[in-house]
């Protein structure tokens, strides 16, 4: 491997001390970041457990819901369905909190005010509606709860993933580039200093010898 070094460094004791400080800091930062990365990845695996199958659940539920919706549109006509939909009371309200995983703020969706209601609570009239409409409404209510959960999980995954990526990059940069470079430079300066000492020593000897000759 080519011995990469930091460019433009004078081999002096002052620089050597400074570099040693920097190396110490880099190593410390490296171990901290490595811990952070490990913690993030552990969180990531936890959340992966939760994501399993939840998108499929949503897709399944929605498929059923749309089937019922289409059926009720066939029975009642588009306009009547739209009219009923307009008179449905609002049911969904969410409590949104956030928590921080190693400095990454992720949303936590709290108790969704139980969206499942009885037929009477929905608010449209029964006179000209089909039973399929009730079914469709029920299924959409159920799927909303699932969708919210899925959204929370996917969002968390996306945020965690980007944080993991940048942490990983930093860890790798420190491990493979910055720390070896600092080490090499320190070594280089130490060698230069020793070399200079030896040169000085030889020079002194020579002077002494030539003085004795006279």
């Amino acid at each position: 491997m080519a011995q990469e070094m930091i460019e433009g460094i004078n081999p002096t004791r002052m620089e050597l001390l400074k570099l040693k400080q920097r190396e110490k800091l880099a190593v410390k930062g490296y171990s901290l970041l490595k811990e952070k990365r490990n913690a993030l990845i552990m969180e990531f695996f936890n959340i992966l457990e939760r994501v399993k199958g939840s998108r499929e659940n949503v897709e399944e539920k929605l498929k059923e819901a749309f089937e019922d919706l289409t059926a009720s549109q066939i029975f009642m006509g588009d306009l009547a369905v739209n009219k009923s939909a307009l008179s449905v009371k609002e049911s969904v309200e969410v409590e949104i909190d956030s928590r921080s995983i190693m400095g990454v703020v992720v949303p936590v969706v709290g108790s969704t005010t139980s969206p499942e209601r009885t037929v009477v609570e929905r608010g449209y009239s029964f006179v000209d509606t089909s039973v399929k409409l009730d079914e469709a409404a029920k299924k959409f209510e159920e799927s909303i709860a699932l969708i919210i959960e899925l959204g929370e999980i996917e969002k968390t995954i996306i945020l965690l993933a980007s944080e993991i990526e940048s942490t990983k990059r930093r860890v790798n940069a420190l491990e493979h580039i910055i720390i070896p470079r600092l080490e090499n430079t320190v070594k280089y300066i130490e060698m230069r200093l020793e070399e200079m000492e030896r040169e000085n020593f030889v020079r002194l000897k020579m002077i002494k010898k030539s003085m004795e000759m006279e």
Partner: protein
Amino acid sequence: MKSSIAIVADADTVTGFKLGGIKEGYAVETPQEAEKNLENLIKGKQVSIIITTEKIGDEIRDFIDKYTKSSALPMIIEIPDKSGPSDRAVDPMRDLIKRVIGVEMVK
């Protein structure tokens, strides 16, 4: 923090979710309309979860990424519409997980 949910999608999907109890529904036809509605919702700050369809999501991917990549809120959730889940060549979630972990996880 209490907040509500909105939906920006095609007419039928909006009708369905209105039946399910979401009041703020915007039926849109074109991606431009969708963008406009989404922007209003995001700027309004009262809505923190927005549901849209995968078709719309694919058309305005850049716009969505701009608002959702870095911050926790708003969440924009993409769901399949009545024609079923769209066939994407790569599942974006799967792809992301693979990139982060380095190996394929069985989902």
